[in-house]
C-alpha cells in the first residue's frame, strides 16, 4: 500500500537526474536504471530464504572482493577501490554495506544472542570493522564512515545506551574543540561537571561517584587536546581542510572553501520557489563541482527552491519512518534487524550528503541515495531496499493466509 511512495522516491527523481546531467552521463544513467530494474526483478523472484541462508556467504564473498580490489583494482584519484570492466566501473565498497547488513542480521537472528553481553558485542563489532579496515586500506574514508550507521540498528537491538551517548559526546567535543580555544573548553567542562554535582541528589554524592566524574572530566580534556593532534598530525591534508572549512567557510574561498561556498550560493539563490526546472544558472555553468554526484542536492535546491528541498527531505523522512515501522512489524528478528540496517544506512547517507551541501557537515564524498549519478550506488541502494521489500512481502503473504 505504501509502496507507491517508495516507487516514486526511487524513480521520479532518477529520471529527473538524468536530464540534469550532461548527455553522456544521462545515457549511462539510463543504462544503469535498466540494469537496476533487472536486478529488482531478480530479487523479487528468488525465494526469501536465500538471503537468510546465504548471508554469511555473501559477506565472505564481499570481503574477498574488497581484498582483491586492493590488488587488482584500478587507481582512480588515488583510491584503489574500483573494478574496471571495459568502460564502466564497479565499486565493491558500495555492496559491502548490503552484505554486512545481511551478515549482522543473520548473526543477531540466533536466539540467545544479547548485545549487552560483551562477547556478542565483540563479534558484532568484528563483523562491522573487518570491511571498514579493508575499505580504509583502499583509501575511501567516506564509505567507511557509513558503517557508523549500524549503531542505529544496534541501539534498537539493545545496545547499552552509554555507547551511543559516548559517541555523540565525542563528536560534540570534537567540533567544540575546533571552534573554541582550549582554555575555554576546559573551563566549560569544569563548570558543566560542577553543575552536575550541584544538581545531584545529596545521597548520590559518594566519593566514588565524585572520582568518576573527575576522571570523566580529565578524559574529556585529554580528548580535546588529542583532537588538535589528530587534525594536524593524522588526517590527510584534504580531509583536514574539509573540517576546517566547516568551522570557518571563509578561510579559503578560492580553494577548499570554494565547493561549500558555491553549494550554498546555488541553494541560497533558489529562494522559496526555485528558478524552475533546468533554469539553474549556478549548477548549469559548472560553478558547483561534482554537481551530478555528491552535490546533486544543489540542483534541487536551486531549481526547485525551498519547496523542492522540503519535498525531498519530507520524502526521505517518510521513507525512513516507514522502513522503521515496517521493520517493527516483522515476524523474524532477521528481517527486523535488516530493516533497521537499511534505515540506518540510508539515513546516514542523506544526513551527511544534504548536510554538507548546506554547510552543516564536512565534505565527505558519499552519494545521496536514489538521486546521485553513479551505477554502483544506485545498484547497492536498490538491492538494499528491495531485499527488505522481499522480506516484507513474505510477511504480508503470511498475514494474508
Amino acid at each position, binding site marked *: 500500500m505504501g509502496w507507491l511512495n517508495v516507487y516514486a522516491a526511487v524513480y521520479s527523481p532518477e529520471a529527473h537526474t538524468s536530464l540534469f546531467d550532461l548527455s553522456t552521463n544521462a545515457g549511462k544513467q539510463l543504462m544503469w536504471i535498466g540494469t537496476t530494474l533487472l536486478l529488482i526483478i531478480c530479487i523479487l523472484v528468488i525465494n526469501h530464504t536465500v538471503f537468510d541462508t546465504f548471508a554469511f556467504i555473501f559477506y565472505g564473498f564481499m570481503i574477498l572482493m574488497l581484498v582483491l580490489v586492493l590488488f587488482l583494482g584500478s587507481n582512480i584519484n588515488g583510491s584503489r577501490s574500483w573494478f574496471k570492466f571495459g568502460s564502466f566501473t564497479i565499486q565493491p565498497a558500495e555492496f559491502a554495506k548490503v552484505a554486512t547488513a545481511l551478515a549482522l542480521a543473520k548473526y543477531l537472528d540466533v536466539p540467545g544472542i544479547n548485545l549487552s553481553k560483551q562477547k556478542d558485542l565483540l563479534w558484532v563489532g568484528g563483523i562491522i570493522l573487518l570491511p571498514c579496515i579493508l575499505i580504509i586500506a583502499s583509501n575511501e574514508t567516506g564509505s567507511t564512515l557509513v558503517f557508523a550507521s549500524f549503531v*542505529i540498528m544496534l*541501539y*534498537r*537491538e*539493545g545496545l547499552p545506551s552509554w555507547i551511543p551517548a559516548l559517541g555523540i559526546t565525542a563528536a560534540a567535543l570534537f567540533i567544540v574543540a575546533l571552534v573554541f580555544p582550549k582554555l575555554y573548553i576546559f573551563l566549560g567542562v569544569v563548570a558543566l561537571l560542577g553543575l552536575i554535582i550541584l544538581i545531584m541528589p545529596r545521597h548520590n554524592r559518594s566519593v566514588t561517584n565524585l572520582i568518576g566524574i573527575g576522571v570523566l572530566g580529565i578524559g574529556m580534556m585529554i580528548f580535546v587536546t588529542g583532537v588538535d593532534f589528530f587534525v594536524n598530525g593524522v588526517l590527510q591534508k584534504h580531509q583536514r581542510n574539509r573540517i576546517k572549512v566547516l568551522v570557518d567557510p*571563509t578561510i579559503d*574561498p*578560492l*580553494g577548499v572553501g570554494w565547493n561549500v*561556498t558555491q553549494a*550554498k*550560493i546555488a*541553494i*541560497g*539563490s*533558489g*529562494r*522559496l520557489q526555485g*528558478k524552475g526546472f533546468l*533554469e539553474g*544558472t*549556478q549548477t548549469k*555553468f*559548472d*560553478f558547483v563541482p561534482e554537481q551530478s554526484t555528491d552535490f546533486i542536492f544543489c540542483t534541487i*535546491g536551486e531549481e526547485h*527552491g*525551498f519547496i523542492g*528541498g*522540503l519535498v525531498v*527531505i*519530507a520524502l*526521505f*523522512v517518510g521513507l*525512513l*519512518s516507514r522502513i*522503521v*515501522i515496517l*521493520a*517493527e512489524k516483522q515476524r523474524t528478528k532477521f528481517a527486523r534487524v535488516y530493516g*533497521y540496517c537499511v*534505515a540506518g544506512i540510508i*539515513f546516514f547517507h542523506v*544526513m551527511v550528503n*544534504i*548536510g554538507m551541501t*548546506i*554547510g*552543516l557537515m564536512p565534505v565527505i564524498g558519499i552519494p545521496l541515495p536514489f538521486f546521485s549519478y553513479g551505477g554502483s550506488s544506485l545498484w547497492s541502494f536498490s538491492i538494499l531496499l528491495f531485499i527488505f521489500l522481499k522480506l516484507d512481502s513474505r510477511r504480508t503473504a503470511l498475514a494474508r493466509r
Partner: protein
Amino acid sequence: MLENRKWVIIGVFCLVGLTYLARLFYLQVLDDTYSLGASKNSIKRVVEIPYRGQIYDRNNQLIVYNTPVYDLYVTPKQVKIPDTSAFCRMMDITRADFDSIMGIAVNYSPVKPSLFLRQLSKEDFARIQDALVDYRGFEPIISSMRTYPAHTMANALGYVSEISKKQLEDQDIMYYRQGDYIGHNGLEEEYEEQLRGKRGVKFMMQNVRGVNKGSWKNGAFDTLAVAGQNLITGIDVEVQKYADTLMQNKVGAVLAVEPSTGEILVSVSAPTYDPNMLSSRFFSKNYRALIKNPYKPLINRPVMASYRPGSTFKLIQALIAQQQGSLFTNTYYGHGGSPMRCHCRGGNDLRGAVQNSCNPYFYNVFRKFIYHNGEHNTFKASAIGLHEWHNMVEKFGMADRLGIDLPSELKGNLPTPEYYDKAYRGALRWKFSNVYSLSIGEGELLISPMKLVNLAATIANRGWYITPHYIKGFGKAGTGVPNQYHQHHETGIDYKYYLPVIDGMRRAVLAGTVTPLVNTTNIELCGKSGTSQNAKYGHKYDHSIFIGFAPMNNPKIAVAVFVENAGWGGKAAASVAALVAERYLKRKTEALVLDAQVKASNYLPPASALIAPKPKKPAPKDTTQKPAKPLMATRPKSITGTGISGN
C-alpha cells in the same frame, strides 16, 4: 521496552530532517547574502594576476620589467565562426593549430574559457581587435610579459614560462593553476615566491549574458592581488654588458664579485642568448633552437661547468702548506726530482714560484704537505695527508656547493681519501705519486668558476669570504637579504700567510706569467693565471683561466675568467679579467689596444674538429667540450645569422 526505542530512532530522523529544513529555510528564504537578486545572476570569479617584481642592477638600472600583452581566451560552446580559414589567416595560425587548440579547450570544458593564444603584443592585438567583435566566444585578457631591456645575463636570470605538468602536481601548497607562469632556472626560480606576489580574486555578479552587475556581497570574499617585490641585484649591468662583448666568439665564463660583501658584479656565461627570446609567445620555437645549439647556450657556465682549476689552485696549496708549517716564504725548490715539466728557469722561493707558476715547486710543496705527519709508511701517510688537505681546502668552499642563490649549482669534485680508495679498489693502494697532479690543480679536481671567484675574493679579503650572491635586496638595497649572505666564513689560514702569496700574485701580473699588455689597464691587479689541460685537441686547446683582484690594497673587485680552448692562461683569460676590472673601477676602458685584441680573438673550437670523431673524454666530466658547428652568438638575431665560418 526495546520496542520503544523505535520512537527514539524515528524521533532522531525527524529532528535531523527538521534541522535541515530550518537551515534550508534560513539559507533560501531568510538570508539575503546567498541570494543573487531577482534576476538570474551568477557569480563569476575573476582572478587578478599580480605584477611580477622587476629586477634592477646595483645602480638602479632596469634589467627586467613587464610589458602588457593580451592572452586570448576561448569558450568553445559560445564559439561561432562563419569562415574558419579566414579566421585562421587573421590569427596567423594554421588550420591544424586551430583544430588542436580547440580540441584541448573542448576537452578541458566546453563552457569555461581556456587559453587560445597567449601573449599577443599590443600591435598584434590592435590588428585583430576590431575583427574579433564578429566572432563570439573569444575574450582578450590583459596579462604581462617579461622584457629584458639590457639583453644580457640570460643564464643567471632564468626565464618565466608556463608551469609544467610535473611542477603543477608536485607543489606543496596548491597555489599554481594550469596555465600559470612560473620562474624557471636562475633568479626567476630562486626568488619565485617574492617576485610573483600574491594572486587576488574578485567575485563579480554577472547576468546570463555575462554583463557585470557589480561585486558580490560588496567584496567580502575578495582578496586583493599583491604585486611582486622588486629584486635589486648586485650586478653592474654596464660592466656586465661590456664583459659580454669581450666574450663574443669565445666559450667560457666571467665572474666578478665585490670581496667585502660577496655581491656578484658580473656573471657572464658565453655563449649566451638574448633573454627576450624565451619570454615571447615564440618560446617553444626559440627554446628548441637553443637546445639544439651545439655550444649549449642554455648552460649557465659560472655554476654548471666544472673545470680543472689548473695553476690557479697553486694559491690554495701555498696557503694551506704555510699554515700547516711545511712551507715557509723562503723555502727554495729547484726543478730537480720532479716529474713535471716547467717553463720557468727554476730555483724559486714562494713569491717567485707564484709569480712564475713553477710546477716542480708546487709538486714539492704538495709532497711535503702530504707526508708532513708522523707516519712512515707512504701509503698510510698519503691517506692521512690527503685527509688533512681535504679538510683545509674545504674551508675555501671547494668541496660542497657554495650555496649561492641560483638553483642549478653543481657540486664539482674535491677528492677525498675515500674517493681514491674507491678508484684504486681498496684502502692503502695509492700514495702521493698517484695523486700528485692535484698539486697543480689537475687530476680529479673539478671546480666551478663560481668557486674560483670566491677564492679570489677570499685572498683579496686575506682570509675570509661571504658566500657570493646576486641579491642585494628586495624593494631597496639591504632589505630581505637572506642571513647566510651576511655571514663571514673563515678559512682557518692566518692573515700573515696571505701576504707573500698576494705579493707573488702582483708580481705574476707585473712580470710573470701574465701577458705584459694587461698592465696597460693600470689598476694594481693581482692575479694568478691557470692553464687547464684539455687533451681533446692537443695542448693548443687548453682552457685559459685567470683569477685575480684589484686594487692590491683595499680590493674592490675579484674576478675569475674561463676561456675554453684559448690556451695559455696568462693571455686570453687574464686580458678579459683585467679589462672587466678596469671598467668596473674606472667606469671606462683605457687599455684600448688590449680591448681591441681581445675582441678580435676567436677561440671557438675549430671547424676542422667538426669532422674528427669525438675522442673519449679523459676526465669524468668536462662539461664544456663541444663539437663545433655554426656559432651561437650573444644576440638573438644571430641565432641563425652570425655564424662564424670556423677559423
